[in-house]
């Protein structure tokens, strides 16, 4: 902390200052201690899960629980993935996640561009209408959407799970894009306009290349939402080959009878990997994306 004390500060003030700095150092060390303990509590379930996935069932069920597997046993992964065709389910989830991610990023950034940069008499009204959708519980639209997709013969296909993302991509993301686009200086656009750039060119050649962080954030969030979604697949998917990872995981226990915890935890752990890895890859962007929406 840079405290700017004037040169003619009285000696007592300087003593006070040194005292405060010492106190602050102690405070910071204490905070670090508390935070590390807290972090340990937060990660311990995941560590425990990791070790259990490498254990025999007898060791998983033993009490007190043990941290280190002995012996190391990798069969839970193999057996978990063959008991139900999880490779297939991972592909299904990837497909839905990727499709809704691409569609969501394009349609939401287009709408965000319109709200941030293009003027129209009805733009304020439409913006408020758009935001009002944020308050709407998903259950209000769930049933008519189901009826709609049933009429379209989309039940038991992936279409209801990713097509809506191509048409708007969610009010939250439109808002996210708009907020980010507003931070780009106006001069950039005016200069491009004078050079004869069209409105579409502004979007495609100026705005999108300047907005990589927020594009990455939205793509990651979209993928995570689609990957984690449970209610959607639960309602729309009913044939085994089309299950998503979340849906299959929820059925794993019931299918098995007595729960094979090591296998269930092994598969759950792999199911956590894509969103977690994606977060680590784009961490810088994602955290700044969260901040942008606050302004």
């Amino acid at each position, binding site marked *: 902390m840079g405290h700017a004390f004037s040169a003619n500060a009285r000696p007592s003030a300087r003593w006070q200052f040194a005292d405060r700095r010492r106190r602050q150092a102690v405070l910071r060390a204490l905070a670090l201690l508390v935070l590390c303990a807290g972090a340990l509590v937060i990660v311990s*379930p995941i560590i425990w899960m990791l070790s259990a996935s490498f254990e025999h069932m007898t060791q998983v069920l033993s009490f007190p629980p043990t941290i280190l597997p002995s012996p190391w046993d990798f069969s839970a992964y193999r057996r978990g993935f063959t008991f139900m065709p999880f490779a297939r389910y991972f592909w299904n989830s990837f497909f839905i996640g990727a499709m809704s991610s691409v569609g969501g990023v394009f349609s939401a950034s287009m709408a965000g561009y319109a709200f941030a940069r293009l003027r129209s008499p009805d733009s304020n009204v439409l913006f408020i209408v758009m935001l009002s959708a944020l*308050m709407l519980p998903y259950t209000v639209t769930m049933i008519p959407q189901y009826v709609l997709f049933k009429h379209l013969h989309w039940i038991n296909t992936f279409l209801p799970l990713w097509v809506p993302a191509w048409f708007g991509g969610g009010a939250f993301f439109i808002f996210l894009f708009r907020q980010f686009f507003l931070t780009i200086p106006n001069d950039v656009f005016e200069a491009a306009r004078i050079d004869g750039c069209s409105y579409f060119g502004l979007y495609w050649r100026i705005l999108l290349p300047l907005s990589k962080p927020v594009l990455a954030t939205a793509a990651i969030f979209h993928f995570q939402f689609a990957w984690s979604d449970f209610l959607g697949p639960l309602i729309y998917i009913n044939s085994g080959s089309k299950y998503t990872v979340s849906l299959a995981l929820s059925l794993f226990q019931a299918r098995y009878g007595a729960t094979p915890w090591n296998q269930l935890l092994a598969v759950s752990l792999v199911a956590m990997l894509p969103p977690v890895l994606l977060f680590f890859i784009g961490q810088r962007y994602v955290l700044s994306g969260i901040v942008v929406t606050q302004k």
Partner: protein
Amino acid sequence: MVRTAPTRPAASRTGRLRTREALYFHLFLLPWMIGFLSFVVYPVLASLYFSFTQYNILQPPHWIGLANYRHLLTSQLFWKSLEVTLYYTLLALPCTLLLGLLVAALLNLRVRGLRVLRTVYYLPTLIPPVAGALLWTWLLNPQFGLIDYVLQRAFHIHGPAWLASPTWVIPAIALMSLWGFGGSMVIYLAAMQGIPQEYYEAAQIDGASPRHLLWRITLPMLTPVIFFTIILGLIGSFQIFTQVYVLTQGGPDYASYFYNLYLYENAFNYFKMGLASAQAWILFIIILGCTLVLFRSSALWVHYDH
């Protein structure tokens, strides 16, 4: 843009540009508008209509007036599900808020390894709800679960049966959701880091103690963000479904029969689409009411800088 338009031709040129711009505005908004009309506006209207009908999808809806609403408001299960949801919200929301603020405040002392710690606290929010719920089923297991083990080692007590106990099932689910407090924590931390340093320096020169800084600067400056997270948290916890569906299916003895679980069962187990639509609308009205009250109250405690 043409700043001044003294002559008529230039003025009409500006007008033409305006219309072109408005045209493009609607062109770029087109995908959203199509989606909004077909996936939001139509469903909202249809759902409102369904809520006054008896509808099982196979036969066309049959108008029954307010019967669905009357049925719900006199149904014990409906009130039970509402009570369960409110109890959970009142338990989970304040804890998440306080813990999030506390950890954010500690991290904001600029401790070493801030980035790593922040990531660790944020980690649980990245875990898909189904996987998280399965993990917690295991953690909360009264025979071999980690939580019971910790309780035994640290306090020499046996934990309750958690998910099998009507008294403890809601606290257990709240505990699980508390695990994800990092989601609001990163928002608080970002907001704290956004508070201008000069405020603190000015206050310190005036002799303010650290406690003063917290109560007089940090917290007031955070109130808009706290307000925002309370509203989002409220909307989110009223609608919790996946975790409960996986953890308990509403049991034991309806002790965790959350609002949306009841709604889901009416809609997709019994195909009472009209009744479920009425439930959705009651929830919507509750959410609107709470948001409105919060907005009204915000004048009293939310501090806006601008």
